[in-house]
């Protein structure tokens, strides 16, 4: 055999991954081979792959169970690490970890997005001294991720387990896409939970894709198949620049989807009636351009990327249809991370406000709603990208502040003609201020008195009065909102501000 033939035969062998039986097992679960995943992800296959021969002296560990390299998505170079679960269940040895570290460091040097295709059982316990505790041990992966955060987009596609320490890879990514039925994240497996704390629970209940995308919020997007996960990642990246230094590129603008009813026809006059905020979003963005994040988690607040005349924007919108659009601990956290994501990559923000305030009561106070709400306010306040705040119906209490109210340096606050801005709504305010008086009145006089006071209160907080005081910058016809936003986002594009000078804030977490 010539040396060239020898090389070819070695390459061929390594490219096959682990033993056939593991390929079969994966196939049964609807899981694709790592190289097939990469072929679907990249426009034209992997351009460069380093440490392909990692651990090649051991026949049983081709590429040491991970593929790392660079390829193109939508014409943009990106760095990738992808576990091979046919090789010792995708577990990490010393060289696996070193390969991951090197591709992260490449992403850092070249300022390219970093994508993690995760399908790994975690550390190889047999190799722990070499791969766990040291300077170039697995901890360094997370250190690198934290350093990369906000410099380049980091995406995690979770195809299988992400166990114990490994579960921190998704945690430090901007976004985690989970494949229903196969993806999971957990610090201790169900077996360990039973042994150590006596809990009997299934993997799906404790760390499955549905749980994490709806309850814990550690996952962001639930998909049915691996192909769908890969398509989502490709679509998501279109809204982003390669790194924090640049802006998202302008796409070709599309018309808004046609609807029978206009915006002014769909918004209920009654502030307290439920209303579906998606109906408004669909009427202002380019058709089919909404890329939602955390759809199932804290649904009382909607977060997602969209195009408006081809411009990438981030939308934060209260959803009155769910929990009245009231802000809770989870919705505040959801907003905080989404705002940080958009601000890091120069994506302007649109706040669509219809909020009765933050939730009150014992339950949320015990959960620390004040500190969670403070997180949302911090992120929103610090964001230096263009910010437009639209008061759709009501903006009560700290809800006004959290949704980029006038004091938080938005480029403008626009209001619809029926908008109400106040410390609290008329019903609550009159009860609070006139409680004693109401109680003292004879029963039959109360309703009339309350109504009179509420009407008085409504006049007090009339939106034209607030416009007169220049609290809002403009009152607009709801049907002109899209046009207004297109013009304003184009004008605010060059907003160039530095929030303040310091090392970093002390964040309320």
């Amino acid at each position: 055999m010539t040396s060239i033939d020898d090389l070819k035969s070695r390459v061929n062998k390594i490219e096959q991954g682990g033993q056939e039986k593991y390929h079969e097992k994966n196939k049964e679960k609807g899981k694709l081979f790592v190289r097939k995943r990469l072929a679907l992800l990249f426009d034209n296959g992997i351009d460069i792959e380093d440490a392909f021969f990692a651990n090649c002296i051991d026949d049983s560990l081709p590429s040491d169970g991970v593929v790392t390299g660079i390829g193109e998505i939508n014409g943009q170079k990106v760095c990738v690490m992808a576990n091979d679960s046919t090789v010792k269940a995708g577990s990490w040895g010393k060289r696996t970890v070193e390969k991951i570290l090197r591709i992260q460091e490449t992403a850092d040097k070249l300022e390219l997005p970093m994508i993690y295709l995760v399908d790994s059982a975690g550390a190889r316990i047999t190799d722990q001294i070499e791969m766990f505790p040291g300077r170039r041990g697995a901890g360094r992966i997370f250190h690198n991720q934290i350093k990369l955060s906000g410099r380049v987009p980091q995406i995690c596609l979770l195809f299988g387990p992400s166990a114990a320490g490994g579960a921190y890879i998704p945690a430090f990514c901007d976004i985690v896409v989970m494949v229903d039925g196969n993806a999971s994240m957990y610090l201790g497996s169900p077996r360990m939970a039973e042994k150590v704390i006596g809990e009997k629970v299934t993997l799906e209940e404790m760390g499955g894709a549905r749980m994490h995308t709806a309850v814990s919020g550690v996952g962001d997007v639930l998909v049915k198949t691996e192909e769908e996960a890969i398509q989502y990642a490709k679509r998501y990246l279109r809204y982003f620049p390669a790194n924090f230094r640049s802006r998202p590129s302008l796409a070709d603008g599309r018309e808004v989807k046609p609807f029978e009813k206009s915006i002014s026809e769909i918004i209920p006059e009654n502030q307290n009636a439920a209303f579906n905020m998606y109906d408004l979003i669909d009427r202002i963005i380019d058709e089919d351009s909404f890329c939602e994040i955390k759809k199932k988690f804290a649904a009382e607040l909607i977060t997602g990327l969209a195009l408006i005349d081809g411009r990438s924007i981030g939308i934060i919108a209260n959803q009155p249809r769910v929990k009245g659009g009231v802000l809770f601990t989870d919705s505040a956290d959801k907003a905080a991370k989404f705002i940080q994501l958009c601000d890091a990559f120069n994506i302007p923000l649109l706040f669509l406000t219809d909020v009765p305030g933050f939730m009150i009561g014992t339950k949320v106070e015990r959960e620390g709603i004040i500190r969670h709400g403070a997180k949302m306010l911090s992120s929103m306040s610090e964001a230096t990208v263009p910010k437009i705040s639209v008061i759709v119906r009501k903006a009560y209490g700290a809800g006004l502040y959290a949704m980029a109210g006038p004091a938080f340096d938005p480029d403008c606050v626009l209001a619809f003609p029926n908008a109400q801005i106040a410390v609290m709504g008329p019903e609550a305010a009159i009860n609070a201020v006139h409680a004693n008086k109401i109680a003292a009145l004879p029963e039959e006089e109360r309703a009339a008195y309350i109504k009179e006071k509420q009407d008085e209160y409504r006049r007090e907080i009339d939106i034209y009065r607030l416009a007169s005081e220049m609290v809002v910058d403009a009152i607009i016809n709801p049907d002109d909102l899209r046009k207004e936003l297109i013009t304003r986002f184009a004008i605010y594009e060059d907003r160039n501000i530095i929030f303040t000078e310091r090392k970093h804030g002390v964040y309320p977490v």
Partner: protein
Amino acid sequence: MADVRASMAGNVWKINVKPGDVVDEGQDVVILESMKMEIPIVAEDNGTVKEVKVAEGDFVNEGDIIAVIE
């Protein structure tokens, strides 16, 4: 069989179904009143209402069962 649960604490303002009614996924089963807002509570699956566990005016806590659908 699926429980319809209160998404947040509040008062039962309006009950839209009675036992025996056929409901579709996403249909409003009950409307709560909380934080001065109307809060629709929807069926998460298609089915028939087996039982309504609350009356108009009742206070419910987050997670309380409002109705049972099968």
